[in-house]
């Protein structure tokens, strides 16, 4: 059998494949964080909680209203995004003019509240969400069986990331958004309603997190704690990519997924810290991140 550094090649290929799947989640989550930070300057610590709420929205939709997976992909992000918009209108917008730390503390507190409420209702072990019928089964790749659902996650995530990137970097709406973050008063003087733009951006970033939650629901146990374990890694991904860099968050999300996958073969115990080691190294050599502007 062919080996690389003493590890069989099929094992490495398998882990790379799985790394790509995890990287897709990282990319989708860090994308939302990067959009919110890049355009609003808010460090959204509630991102993991919105991800969790997205998964629960899908679960509740299915159990209580018979909403199937495909509708959940659309409705759960809308519902959670709306919640994000309400939070932005009621609380966050009062904090834009002061230190970003306050936004961080507010969203951090909200994440705890959301987690506590869901734990009170659903308990810590969480709930199971079935894999949709059309996506059950797997492809035999020779070196591993890739569940169809995981392949779908990669496809969906890469598509959404690509569309979001194009929307911000290549359209007139995106240009307005970017201009508004550079100089809000100037853009407002052109007759563009900047506060609405900002609110919608936050809602969209939150909806991306909820979408990731719906995509994750059939893969992991839908539990109140599912977001808090992920959000820290995702923050590291954003820092590595460069705070606020859209492309940086997508690329580093996917690449770090792969690195983590390889670590799980070589030295599994380190798999939950490898991202942070890389973050530390990146901060030493390029404090603004791999794709960040100095």
């Amino acid at each position, binding site marked *: 059998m062919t080996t690389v550094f003493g590890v069989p090649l099929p094992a490495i290929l*398998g*882990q790379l494949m*799985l*790394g790509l799947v995890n990287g897709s989640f990282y990319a989708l989550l860090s994308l939302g964080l990067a959009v919110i930070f890049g355009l609003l300057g808010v460090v959204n610590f509630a991102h993991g909680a919105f991800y969790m709420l997205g998964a629960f929205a899908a679960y509740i939709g299915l159990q209580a209203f018979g909403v199937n997976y495909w509708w959940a992909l659309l409705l759960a992000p809308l519902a959670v995004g709306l919640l994000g918009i309400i939070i932005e209108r009621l609380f966050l917008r009062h904090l834009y003019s002061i230190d970003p730390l306050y936004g961080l503390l507010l969203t951090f507190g909200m994440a705890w509240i959301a987690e506590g409420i869901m734990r009170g209702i659903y308990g*810590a*072990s969480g709930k*199971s969400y079935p894999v949709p019928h059309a996506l059950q089964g797997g492809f035999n790749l020779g070196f591993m069986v890739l569940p169809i659902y995981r392949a779908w996650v990669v496809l969906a995530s890469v598509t959404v990331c690509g569309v979001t990137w194009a929307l911000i970097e290549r359209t007139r709406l995106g240009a307005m958004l970017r201009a508004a973050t550079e100089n809000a008063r100037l853009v407002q003087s052109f007759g563009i309603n900047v506060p609405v733009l900002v609110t919608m951006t936050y809602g969209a970033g939150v909806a991306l997190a909820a979408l990731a939650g719906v995509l994750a629901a059939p893969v992991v146990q839908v539990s109140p*704690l599912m977001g808090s*374990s992920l959000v820290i890694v995702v923050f590291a991904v954003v820092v590595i990519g460069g705070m606020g860099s859209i492309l940086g968050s997508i690329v580093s999300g996917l690449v770090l997924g792969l690195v983590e996958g390889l670590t799980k073969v070589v030295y599994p*115990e380190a798999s939950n810290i490898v991202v942070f080691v890389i973050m530390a190294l990146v901060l030493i050599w390029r404090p603004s991140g791999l794709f960040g502007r100095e």
Partner: protein
Amino acid sequence: MLKSATALCALCLSALSAAYAAGDQVVIGDIDDMSGVYADVGGVNAVESINMAIADFGGTVLGKKIVLLSADHQNKPDIGASKFREWADQSGVNMVLGGSNTGVSIAMSKVAAAKKVPFIAIGAGGSSLTGADCTPYTIHYVYDTTALGNGTAGAIVKEGGKTWFFVTADYAFGTQLQDAASKVVLANGGKVLGAVRAPLGTTDYSSFLLQAQASGAQVLGLANAGTDFENSLKAADEFGITKTMKPAALLVFITDIHALTLQTAQGLYLTTGWYWDLNDETRAFAKRFFAKTSKEPTMDQAGYYSSTTQYLKAVKAVNSTDPDLVMAELKKTKINDMFAKNGYVRADGLMVHTMYVMKVKTPAESKYPWDYYKLVRTVPGEEADGTQPDPACVMPKK
């Protein structure tokens, strides 16, 4: 000046009354995971169990009011230990229960020994609690890693599952559980082909499972618990690994099966110290518990009720809360209640009692809500945990 003197006096008065109160009541403390991965196993519903036991005693023992304190250790040994110390120093706690999470329980047992406060470990699995980490004031009540390994691994090896690969939670509990199961596998002529240690709280187990599959082993030993166990079994199912390997769950609670659903968990072998649907007595307790919590009790939650009751009985029998007298009484009295029949606390502190090897029912076999297990084998306490105290346990000389 007068003001501050008054304030000072008020302060000393309140301090006096606190000290007086501590002597006038029996204080039971519960330090448990109230919010993390093990919160469903014990958690706030275990507080309910303790309250049921206290209520059954009429709320008093030796004419003193029974008071219950509870705290969340957040799975952090330092928090568990400092809470225990605080209660021992300031609240006059007479007995502490809980400590789900072996790491936390080990830290708490050190405080128990230093402060001479009986500690009944429930929810933690690590058998070192009554081995290398034993103390004269620790009792390990519901199950330990040795019994779990003997029960599940013993049953599966005897059915022909000879080659094993472990996915292990990377901390004291996981490694002790893997060791216990490995011993049984090897003793029965089986082989351990490999093991991988996954960090606690891992959500994606697919990488580890792929390694397990590549090993070619017949049995997938899951040496983890709670959400970790749920996520690993779910991924094994998704990747079709349960078709080629037989999953062996080394620690499963009924709440895990409830969360996973029978569709995913069916056919799984597991070992439990108690099951709500064993007999009329267990069902009667479960019914009372369900009325308060809308859930069937886990083995831990039943253990909380049973151990609180046994402690209060011992206090009554020796007519004192003196820790040494109570511990001596607990170690010499047989335990006969809805939790255990002829259970006893061994010299090293382990409560030896019957364990049950169960197989999870298929959705078709399950006739009513929470009807999840069928009994495969009843394992007598001595077979599960051995007849002799753990030689690694060295008690300090008095």
